[in-house]
């Protein structure tokens, strides 16, 4: 604004020039922040050395020497702390992915049910939301783990479903598939069927746009998905053989086990987060003005099309940003798994490894960066999705 008159402000000193002043202050604050950061880092290093505490990241290559309850990749006690880190990370991601998937499905169902014109359904949904939203997640985890799953019988008195599935205090034992040579033919057939279904859907859409004709995409795709893999089984044989769990000695051996710790943490986080997602969905749907519904109806759209083509696309714009926050919360809450002994990143790496090596600063720094990275990735993906569904003004 100073220069509108064309006269330069009396530039006796730089301090009177707002641009130079702004620059000066920015440079000063950057220097201060960097200086403090360097001071903290340097001082920590010096003090660690002085107190004889080992520092650095060399410990990641040392042998761990302990066992882990659940690992998605091969692990033996002679592996390194670095591998323990990956196992913890994968276990955290497993809970997060399962939790996000189920919480989204349940959350959408409850959120829509909450708006149901049926009094009973909408009340039940409201009760669900109010109960699970208002109890701290740690207590819910304890409830499922200690009150529900601890009440299961021992391995010798397991609940059995036709001698294939077994449920006891040690977990749910299910048959484990092993791929046979015919597996590849099966996988190829499945892939072809999926590709075909996708192509069908594309053609049906363009058919509808050009001629307005409907094509039964769902049933034809389903037929494709059943017939092609079915043929591969008939021709090449079974794609899997199943190893059944069997009680031998102390425990069941063979098959796969879903440990109660994983079950408790996933269940608790799913139910807790679903309550928040339900409210988000409800608010999103209610944010679409009633005029839109009326306009859709006057165009002659059927109720299911009205919901799918008019209401939900507009509601999603409101739902996505808070939904992202719920996903982030779920990932961060998964660190509560440490309380029931589920081997997640916090319990395994920031707990056991920290204690066995004594390198608190390094392990905590790595763990914090990982959570930051996971959260930023989720935010990033959700932002891309948000952009795609945002209203495009024409």
């Amino acid at each position, binding site marked *: 604004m100073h220069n509108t008159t064309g006269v330069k402000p009396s530039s006796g000193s730089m301090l009177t020039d707002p641009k130079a002043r702004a620059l000066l202050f920015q440079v000063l604050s950057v220097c201060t922040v960097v200086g403090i950061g360097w*001071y*903290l880092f340097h*001082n*920590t290093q*010096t*003090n*660690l050395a*002085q*107190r*004889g*505490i*080992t520092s650095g990241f060399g410990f990641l290559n040392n042998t761990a*020497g*302990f*066992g*882990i*309850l659940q690992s998605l990749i091969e692990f033996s*006690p002679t592996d390194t702390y670095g591998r323990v880190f990956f196992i913890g990370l994968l276990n955290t991601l497993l809970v997060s992915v399962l939790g996000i998937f189920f919480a989204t499905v349940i959350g959408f169902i409850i959120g829509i049910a909450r708006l149901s014109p049926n009094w009973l359904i909408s009340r039940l949904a409201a009760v669900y939301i109010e109960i699970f939203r208002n109890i701290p997640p*740690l207590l819910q985890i304890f409830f499922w783990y200690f009150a529900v799953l*601890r009440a299961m019988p*021992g391995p010798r008195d397991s609940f059995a479903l036709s001698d294939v599935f077994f449920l006891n*205090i*040690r977990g749910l034992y299910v048959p484990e598939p092993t791929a046979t040579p015919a597996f590849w033919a099966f996988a190829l057939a499945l892939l072809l069927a999926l590709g075909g279904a996708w192509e069908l859907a594309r053609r049906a859409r363009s058919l509808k746009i050009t001629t307005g004709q409907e094509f039964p995409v769902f049933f034809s795709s389903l037929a494709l998905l059943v017939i092609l893999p079915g043929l591969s089984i008939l021709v090449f044989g079974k794609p899997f053989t199943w190893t059944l769990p069997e009680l*031998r*000695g*102390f*425990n069941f*051996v063979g098959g796969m086990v879903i440990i*109660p710790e994983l079950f408790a943490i996933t269940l608790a986080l799913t139910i807790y987060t679903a309550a928040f997602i339900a409210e988000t969905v409800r608010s999103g749907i209610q944010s679409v003005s009633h005029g839109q519904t009326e306009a859709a109806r006057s165009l002659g759209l059927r109720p299911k099309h009205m919901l799918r083509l008019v209401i939900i696309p507009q509601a999603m714009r409101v739902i996505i940003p808070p939904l992202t926050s719920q996903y982030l919360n779920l990932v961060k809450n998964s*660190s*509560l798994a*440490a*309380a029931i*002994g589920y*081997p997640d990143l*916090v*319990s395994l790496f*920031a*707990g*056991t490894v*920290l*204690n*066995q*090596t*004594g390198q*608190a*600063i390094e*392990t*905590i720094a790595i763990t914090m960066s990982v959570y930051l990275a996971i959260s930023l990735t989720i935010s990033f993906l959700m932002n891309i999705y948000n952009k795609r569904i945002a209203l495009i003004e024409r």
Partner: protein
Amino acid sequence: MKAAKTTLIAAAVAATAGLSLPAHAGTTLDAVLKKGFVQCGVSDGLPGFSYTDEKGQYKGIDVDVCRGVAAAVFGDASKVRFSPLTAKERFTAVQSGEVDVLSRNTTWTSSRDAGMGLSFTGVTYYDGQGFLVSTKIGVKSAKELDGASVCIQSGTTTELNLTDYFRANGMKYTPITYDKSDETVKALEAGRCDVLTSDQSQLYAQRIKLGNPADFIVLPEVISKEPLGPVVRQGDDEWFNIVRWTLFAMVNAEELGLTSGNVEEQAKTSANPDVRRLLGAEGEYGKDLKLQKDWALQIVKQVGNYGEMFERNVGMGSELKIARGQNALWNVGGLQYAPPVR
């Protein structure tokens, strides 16, 4: 919330390491004298070692060691405050200076002594790792445990020894780890695991906590050496010496026949030069340690000698009824031995 707590402590380490001035020898004693009490890290509930009785008082061998340090420093065994710590929290608590002494059935190992900035001052209790099993599974020896689910406290040497033992014997196991020893006991009782493994002394202590102790037995095998002792921060020799000699004074007192009952009288009447030196009647040995002349007298008078401490907490005078075994004095076939005061 244990995870959150560990993180907090770790943040505290970062903060102290970053902001405090370098630790000089002697700062711990000055700080302790200034605040007027010894801050002592103990276990979060282990009968015989550190637990709170029905009146809320801390009891146990590990607790008594800290009371001994307070008696030596202040002449008053009650000038001590306790911080209950889980196995996972304990080392960070010492490193960060949150506690002055860690007396929490902690095994002395080379990596802890040399790599973590800690110093072990001695051995309070010679222990070894064992197994506790339900009589229902009909196991008589640890060699029969192939395929078992084993409950362990996380972040302990126990966790590592267990792996070594099963590997060495070509057996498989499923580890179930919890932060607190209480949780491992509950899990054993509920049947989440077949076996609980820990130091033998702890197994006896945990067995009492079970609903029906008779349903559980401790297997005969001892699979490791577990010398348990007090820990201080590395780099403060003055404080290290005080904690180390507190324990030595108790062992020496037992050897010389001094008890909490007779120590005051002996200090006045004894002609034995060893007794006179220990109790401060002769020489200035307290001064070397930067303590009062009667430092050892106060320890024995207020806390007792090593034998008294042992019997009262874990021996025949307690519920645990553990025999002295390796913890007897050296001159009767045990391992407890203290250098002389002179």
